[in-house]
């Protein structure tokens, strides 16, 4: 599986690198005796801080490497594997750099933003592991565009049948064909659209069939609209899962830019008031 290769890439090469880095940092921290208490200003603190800052910059470079299609500098898969493991190692490296000193200042803000980036990244790995398989299973082997084509066909057939029926049914079918697949931005997070015209149409047609008796055109129309509704629901479930699969990046990337600015401020301020 492609996504498994992300973690298993080159037989866990970058997991080993990250583990070495973490063990080395922890070992150095345990061995080192600071002049006062552990803090970012000891020689070990400066070393861990430099490693952490360089790591953060390199991790942000992934966004550029990902879009450099002609680049031969490693593979994007390899870069991503390294990005994940070395990003995780930052939790330890940066925490040791702080010497466990936290306060209401921009230094701890940078640390918190970094943790936000890393945890949103962990969320990303999780959704990229779990969701794509579910998404392919959702559509029965079809693509979303094929489903869209199917919806158009159903609309054409429904209009043809409704043209022989009452005008209110024609209007119902028309409104059903205009049904929004996803209502609003928030609708993307739910698989349901409140007041969906297609659902209404199905309801109305079912009532009519019961009341007036199920004539063939009415039955055909009902079947068509019912199929439309189930296909709409399929697309909506798919969209919901896709949205949740995309959401983590809306945190991961902006937070990393906030981190970039705060990290710069952290480094400048430490030497501004040395």
């Amino acid at each position: 599986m492609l996504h498994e290769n992300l973690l298993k890439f080159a037989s866990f090469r970058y997991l080993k690198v990250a583990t070495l880095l973490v063990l080395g940092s922890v070992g150095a921290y345990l061995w080192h005796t600071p002049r006062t208490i552990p803090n970012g200003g000891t020689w070990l603190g400066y070393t861990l801080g430099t490693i952490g800052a360089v790591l953060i910059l390199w991790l942000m470079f992934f966004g550029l490497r990902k879009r450099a299609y002609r680049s031969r500098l490693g593979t994007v898969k390899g870069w991503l594997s390294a990005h994940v493991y070395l990003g995780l190692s930052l939790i330890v490296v940066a925490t040791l750099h702080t010497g466990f000193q936290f306060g209401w200042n921009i230094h701890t803000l940078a640390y918190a933003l970094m943790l936000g980036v890393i945890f949103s990244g962990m969320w990303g790995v999780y959704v990229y592991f779990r969701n794509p398989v579910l998404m392919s299973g959702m559509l029965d082997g079809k693509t979303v565009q094929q489903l869209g084509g199917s919806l158009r066909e159903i609309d054409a057939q429904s209009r043809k049948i409704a043209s022989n029926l009452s005008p209110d049914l024609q209007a119902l079918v028309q409104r059903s064909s205009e049904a929004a697949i996803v209502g609003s931005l928030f609708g993307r997070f739910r698989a349901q659209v409140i007041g969906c015209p297609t659902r209404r149409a199905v309801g109305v047609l079912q009532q009519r069939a019961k009341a007036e008796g199920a004539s063939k055109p009415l039955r055909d129309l009902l079947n068509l609209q019912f199929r439309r509704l189930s296909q709409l629901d399929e697309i909506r479930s798919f969209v919901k899962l896709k949205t949740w699969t995309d959401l983590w990046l809306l945190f991961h990337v902006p937070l990393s830019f906030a981190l970039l600015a705060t990290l710069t401020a952290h480094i400048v301020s430490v030497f501004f008031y040395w």
Partner: protein
Amino acid sequence: MQHKEDDPITAQIKNLQRPLGGRRLLSWGLFVIAAVVALLLPVASSEHADELKVWVHKVPGLAEHVLPLMASVEQAFLARRPDPAVKAPAERKSHDDIHAPLVGGAYVSPPPTLLGLDRVWNPGPLAQAHQPWANDCKVCHSVPFKQVMDKDCRTCHATIGDHVDAKAGEVHGLSDRSCTSCHQDHQGEFGLATQNLHFVGRDCAECHRDIKRAMPATHTENVADFATQHPQFRVQLAGPPPASALTRVRLAPGKTLEEPTGLKFPHDVHLSAKGIDSPKGTVRMECANCHVLQPDGLRFVPTNMKDHCQSCHALKLEPQMSNREVPHGPVPEVLTALREFYAYVAQQGGLPASAEPLTRTIQITRPGEPQALPRSFIDLPGGVRERAASAATELFEKTSCVVCHEVSREAGAGLAGTPGSDLPQWKIAPVQSIHEWMPKSVFNHTAHANEACTDCHQAEHSKKAAEVLMPRIEVCRDCHAGTAPAANKITSDCGLCHGFHQPARLPVTAKLTRPALLSSAHSPDGATAR
């Protein structure tokens, strides 16, 4: 299947295929906000306050709210700032190469940051004593991108002593050190001297294990560790009084150092287990009867005649009929008192009977001398002068002064204009002045309160006052190990007894722990007192 480009379903599907948008806007937005709040505003308000104020002036509506706030914040900061040292900080070699502004001869810190906006940069709590200026960063961080300079520290700590006298010249490895080489703030509420406690010992040996490399002209011997490589103690001895020139002499086993005191005082007699005769009967004396520890636990109240000796060694003048004593003062004063006493007695025709009972007089005689009762001179033939002279001779040469002092007859008349000037004159040899025994270290007696004085000072065997009873290093090594732990011994590093800043004088505090370090930050005229 072909379909129209503007088919709404196709359009919606296309839209839904795109990833969630807003990343770019959010990224830029957060980046700019973070950069402004965390970097640009603090830098501007710290270093470009004037330009900021001009800009605020220009923005309508902002000026009337923000400018008064800026002014009040600045006033609050300035009000809390310490007064600059009255005199300019002492010149010393350090790597301050920026000429600091002087106001009337004192160094003044740069103006505070506008609105204190740099407080977002504060990385941690300051030492307690510095917390009044916790948000006034410029008090210490006066120049951007430079470490805190010695000038900044000396604004308040003007009289902190150097480790080596500046007159001694350049010392390799020391002259390029600044305050911040050893003292770092923002590490918690501990004082900056206390925070170094566990670190001090290690640093000292760096230079002191081969001290000649750092300072070829030194008299100090190499020291690495108290247990393994520490020279025998040196004691500061004074030469003959009154010049009392001080030198430091190394103790040696089997040899007792002596220092001229001008006094006769046998410790062994006074501390005898059998007790000693006193006006109140036999008393068993102990060290604390004469050596009273001061509240700081470091030094003793100077032993003096009035408080510690006179209750037994009375300077009685006619003991058979009164409790009167001559003053323990200069010779002319004593002779005057005698002269006036006998003149009074002659005028009155005798001494009225004493209202209070006569206290018992102890007669001190040297071994072999006959016990002679003190005589009364009131009925002696001759005039007042003869009686006073006889009484003076007896006091000076037999019963009182000579017991403790070196007394010699002096020819000639006494101090002109005093009643006693026509009496025989004596000279009392000057007594040694009180001085520090081990000036380069600090010893806390209260910390050793559970030890007997005689564990370290062999006073009960001492026959002469001249004997120096200071202990050798072996005595201390009984209990104190070096920096490496040893079973049943106290792990001791350099900082336990020595301070870095000289002189390591009395601390103002009564704290017992690490007085050497505390005292270095609290010299008597230092800026802060705990």
